[in-house]
């Protein structure tokens, strides 16, 4: 499974990948392109990415999460042109208990936002698109 992909994300497949008969909790997060941002009507987002580093960094994040919590975690980030309503990122965490699943899922999406070399250019219904401001990439 490619974790950084131009293909549509499949959150159900991610959930299945972290499922186990021993897991009583499964938490998932799906980020979706929304139609309004800062008062402007959005028609889509173009995701840019330095793919080789993004794939390595995402693998490192997932490995670190599985060391921090007794959980199995999986995630994928979509790149390219996305329309409103399409999923841009998905995370799934399965664990024996819900607390660890929620915590691992939350931690992974927070790390993705500060460590993955990904950028988004919002396209608006009216006017030119713009690159959204981000945070300086965090060293692991």
């Amino acid at each position, binding site marked *: 499974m490619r974790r950084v992909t131009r293909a549509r994300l499949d959150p159900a497949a991610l959930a299945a990948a972290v499922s186990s008969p021993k897991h009583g909790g499964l938490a998932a997060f799906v*980020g979706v392109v929304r139609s309004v941002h800062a008062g402007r009507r959005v028609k889509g987002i173009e*995701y*840019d*990415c*330095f793919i*080789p*580093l993004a794939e*390595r960094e995402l693998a490192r994040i997932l490995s670190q999460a599985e060391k921090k919590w007794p959980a199995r975690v999986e995630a994928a*980030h979509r790149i390219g042109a996305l329309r409103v309503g399409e999923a*841009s*990122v998905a995370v799934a965490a399965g664990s024996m208990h819900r607390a660890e699943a929620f915590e691992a899922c939350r931690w992974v*999406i927070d790390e*993705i*936002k*500060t*460590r*993955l*070399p*990904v*950028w*988004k*250019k919002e396209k608006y219904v009216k006017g030119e698109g713009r*690159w*959204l*401001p*981000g*945070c*300086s*990439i965090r*060293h*692991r």
Partner: protein
Amino acid sequence: MTRTIELYGRLRDAGLGDSVKVELPAAATARQALAALKKTLGRKSGLVDGCSLATDEDVLLASDPIPAKGRLAALPPVCGG
């Protein structure tokens, strides 16, 4: 030595395409490479502010020497998700 630096995110708006070539001294650091990139961008040099330099394996600290081979990329502040 001449090195190619790949451009991503807002740096693509500099009008220089997907990458630029810069002249660097031997054993240059990431800081020196970003300074060379800034010089190349001229009046759009502000786009480099807040950027980091990375290989395809890691983000480099400013004081890190750049590896002799492999890809180099200038990374603006990130906003995945």
